[in-house]
C-alpha cells in the first residue's frame, strides 16, 4: 500500500507538511476516520452538556484580578492556544520545587520523592528539573538508556520561557477594609416626665389653691423627683457607655474573629488551590479540570473536602455567634458568598464524588448567607469541562484537523524501526512456560 512505500523510501515525506501522496493522505484520513468514529458519540453528548456548563464559566467575573496568573489563564482555557505538547510545565516544576524544599520532605529518600512526583504526573524531565533547582541530583539523572529514550522520544525539552514566575504566588490576601461599626444612634431619650410631673404639680397647686403647704410639698417633691431623674439619667448614661464599650469590645472580638476567619479562608483557599494543582497535574494537559479522578485523587478529594467542611463549620460557628450581637451594624455584601469552586462542584463523572459535594455546598452556603457580611475571596473557577467528556478532546480535534489538511504534528519523528539481525533465531527461552491458573485447577479436578 502507498503508505508503506512512502515510509520505505527513507521516509522523506514523513515529517514534511508538503508533498504527501494521495495514497498516504487517504490512508491517514481513513485511520483518522476510524479513530474519530467513537469520538463523535462523546462529542455530541459533550456539546449538549456545554450549555449547562456555561453558567459556571460566567460566574467568577469579579474577582479575577485577584487570582494568580496561571489560574485566570486556566479559566479561559477555550481561548488559550494549546502549547506544544512537550515543554516543561513550569507550574508543576515550581510546585515540586516547593514541595522538595519543605523541611519535612527533604530528609525523605530520593526514590520516594521521585516516585511521588511521578505519580503526580510529572515527566522525568520535569522531575529532573525540579531536583536540579533544589540542588539535589535526581536518582534518574544517570538513568538507564530506557529513560533517555523516553526523554527523547517525541518530546522537545525546551523549558517554557514564558512562565518564569513560580506558580504559587505569595499568599495574597484581599485587603478587606474593616470598618468599625458606626456609633450607634442613641435611642430617643425617654420622655422627661419630671416636667410633666412638675406641670402636674403646678396644676395640682393651682387646683388645690393651697399656698405654701403645696409649694412646700412641691419643694420637697421636686428635689426628690429630680434626684431620681438624675439617677435615671446617670443610669442611662452609664448604660450608653457600657453599650458603647460593649460594642467596642464586640468590634474588637469581631476583628479578631475576622482575622482568624481570614487566615482560615487563606488556608482553605490554599488547600483548594493545591488540590486543583494536584488534579490538574494528573491530567497533564492544560485544560478543563478533570472530571474523572483516580481512586487516590478521590480519596484525597474526600479528605480535603472533609477538612474544608471542618473549616467551614468553624467559620460558621464563629460567625453565627458574632452576628447575633452586631448584625444590624454591618453592611451586607451580597455577592461574596463562600462557595466551593465551580470545578469542584461540577467535577467528576461519577455520582459518588459529585453528589456529596453539591448538597454539602448548598448547606454550607445557606448557613453562611446569614452572615453575608463576611468578606470572602471569591473562588475563580476554571472553565468546567462538561461531565463525561474526556479531557483531551480539544487536542484530539486539533490532531484530526491537522491530518485532514495534510499536515502532521511537529513532534512526530522519523524513527528507524527496521529490523536488525533478522537471521537471529527465535527459540524457546531458558525458562519453562508456567502453568496457567485454569490449567492448575483443571488438573486438581
Amino acid at each position: 500500500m502507498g503508505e508503506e512505500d512512502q515510509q520505505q523510501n527513507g521516509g522523506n515525506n514523513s515529517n514534511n507538511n508538503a508533498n504527501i501522496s494521495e495514497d498516504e493522505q487517504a490512508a491517514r484520513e481513513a485511520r483518522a476516520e476510524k479513530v474519530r468514529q467513537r469520538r463523535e458519540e462523546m462529542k455530541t453528548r459533550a456539546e449538549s452538556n456545554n450549555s449547562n456548563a456555561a453558567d459556571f464559566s460566567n460566574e467568577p467575573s469579579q474577582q479575577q484580578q485577584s487570582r494568580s496568573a496561571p489560574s485566570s489563564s486556566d479559566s479561559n482555557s477555550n481561548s488559550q492556544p494549546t502549547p506544544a505538547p512537550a515543554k516543561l510545565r513550569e507550574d508543576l516544576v515550581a510546585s515540586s520545587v516547593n514541595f522538595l524544599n519543605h523541611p519535612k520532605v527533604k530528609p525523605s529518600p530520593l526514590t520516594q520523592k521521585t516516585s511521588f512526583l511521578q505519580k503526580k504526573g510529572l515527566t522525568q524531565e520535569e522531575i529532573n528539573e525540579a531536583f536540579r533547582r533544589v540542588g539535589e541530583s535526581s536518582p534518574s539523572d544517570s538513568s538507564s538508556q530506557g529513560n533517555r529514550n523516553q526523554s527523547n522520544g517525541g518530546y522537545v525539552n525546551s523549558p517554557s520561557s514564558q512562565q518564569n514566575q513560580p506558580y504559587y504566588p505569595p499568599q495574597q490576601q484581599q485587603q478587606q477594609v474593616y470598618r468599625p461599626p458606626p456609633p450607634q444612634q442613641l435611642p430617643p431619650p425617654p420622655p422627661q416626665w419630671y416636667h410633666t410631673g412638675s406641670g402636674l404639680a403646678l396644676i395640682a397647686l393651682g387646683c388645690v389653691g393651697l399656698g405654701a403647704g403645696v409649694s412646700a410639698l412641691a419643694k420637697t417633691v421636686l428635689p426628690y423627683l429630680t434626684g431620681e431623674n438624675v439617677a435615671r439619667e446617670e443610669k442611662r448614661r452609664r448604660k450608653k457607655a457600657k453599650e458603647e464599650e460593649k460594642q467596642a469590645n464586640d468590634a474588637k472580638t469581631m476583628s479578631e474573629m475576622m482575622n482568624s476567619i481570614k487566615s482560615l479562608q487563606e488556608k482553605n483557599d490554599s488547600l483548594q488551590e493545591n488540590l486543583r494543582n494536584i488534579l490538574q497535574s494528573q491530567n497533564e494537559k492544560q485544560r478543563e479540570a478533570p472530571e474523572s479522578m483516580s481512586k487516590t485523587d478521590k480519596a484525597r478529594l474526600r479528605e480535603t473536602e472533609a477538612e474544608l467542611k471542618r473549616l467551614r463549620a468553624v467559620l460558621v460557628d464563629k460567625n453565627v455567634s458574632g452576628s447575633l450581637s452586631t448584625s444590624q451594624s454591618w453592611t451586607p455584601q451580597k455577592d461574596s458568598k463562600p462557595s466551593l469552586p465551580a470545578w469542584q462542584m461540577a467535577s467528576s463523572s461519577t455520582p459518588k464524588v459529585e453528589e456529596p459535594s453539591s448538597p454539602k455546598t448548598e448547606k454550607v452556603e445557606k448557613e453562611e448567607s446569614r452572615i453575608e457580611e463576611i468578606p470572602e475571596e471569591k473562588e475563580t473557577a476554571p472553565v468546567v469541562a462538561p461531565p463525561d467528556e474526556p479531557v483531551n478532546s480539544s487536542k484530539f480535534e486539533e490532531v484530526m484537523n491537522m491530518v485532514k489538511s495534510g499536515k502532521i504534528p511537529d513532534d512526530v519523528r522519523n524513527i528507524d524501526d527496521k529490523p536488525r539481525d533478522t537471521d537471529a533465531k527465535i527459540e524457546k527461552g531458558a525458562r519453562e512456560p508456567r502453568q496457567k491458573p485454569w490449567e492448575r485447577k483443571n488438573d486438581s479436578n
Partner: protein
Amino acid sequence: QHLSLLFIFFTDLDEMGLFKTPFSGYSVKFSPFEENRLAVATAQHFGIIGNGRLHILDSRNGGAFIREINSFETKDGLYDVAWSEENENIIVGASGDGSVKIWDIGRMGPDSKFPIRSYEEHTCEVYSVDWNPVHKKTFLSGSWDESVKLWDPMAGAGSIRTFKEHRYCIYSTVWSPHHPDRFASASGDRTIKIWDVKSPHSGNTILAHDHEVLTCDWNKYNENILVSGSVDKSIRIWDIRNTQRELGMLKGHNYAVRRVKCSPHSENIVASCSYDLTLALWDTNDNNPLQRRYDHHTEFVVGLDFNLFIEGEMASCSWDETVMVWNGRE
C-alpha cells in the same frame, strides 16, 4: 502552605500504582512468565498519527511501584502487544503501518533497540496480536484489512495462513485457552467468527451485536463460553454451541466497550473497559452482575489485563497516557 500536598505525601497508603506514558495507551499485557512484568503498547496522538512505543514495565507491591525496564520506539503507532508463551524475552507488537514486529527484550548491544523481525504483509493497521497459550508456538494478527493471519516465528519469513471472511475491520483475535487450533475474531462487521486454523473458512459466525464488535475473550474455565464487547455499549455472553441468542448481556457502560477480559482465576468474573472512561468488574453469576466500577482514567480506557499469577491484580491503560495497576479484590 503546602500542607495538603504533604498531607497526601505522607498518608499515601491505598495507592493505585501509576505509570505515565508519553503516548496514548492502547494495550497492556501481563507477562506469562513473570508476575511483576507487563508490556504496554502506545501510539502518539491518540493513535491517529505519529510514532509508537512499547514499554516493558516492572510492577511491585500490588502495583504501588511501577518502573520502566525497557522501551522500544516505532515509526508508527502500536495498537497491541503479545508476549511469547515460549520465550520470556520475545514480544510481538501490532503496528499502524501494517507491520507486525518482534523484539527480543533480552538483547544487548548496539542493535538491541531494534526489532528482530518485521512482518509486512497486512495492508492496513494491525489492531490485534495474540500468542497461542496452548501450543505456544504461533501467534495471530488481526487487521483493518479484514484479514487474520497466522504466524510461526520459528518457521520462516511469512505468515502460515490468511483468513479472510470478515467484511470490515478486525479489532480482536483471540486464541481459545482450551483448544490449540481454535480462535475467535471480532469485527466491525458486527460479527464474531469462530475458526479452526486447519480450515480457511470459519466454523461459526455469530451475529453478535448491533454495532461494531471491538473485543472478545474466551472463558478460561468453560471452553464453550465466549464474551464480547461492542460499540453498542453492551457485553454479551455466548455459548458457541448455540449462537442464535446470547446467554446473557452485561449492561452498564455508557459508551463503546473497548475490551473485555475473562478472569484467569474465576469462571464468572469478567472485566471490561470502555470509552466512557471507566472499567467495570462483573460477576456473571450475580443477578446484579456489576460488582465494581473504576474511574481512575480521564480518557478512553483502551487496554486491560489480568495478572495470571496474582489473583485479582489488574492493569489498565488509556488515552490519558497513564497505566494503572491495582488489585480488584482489595
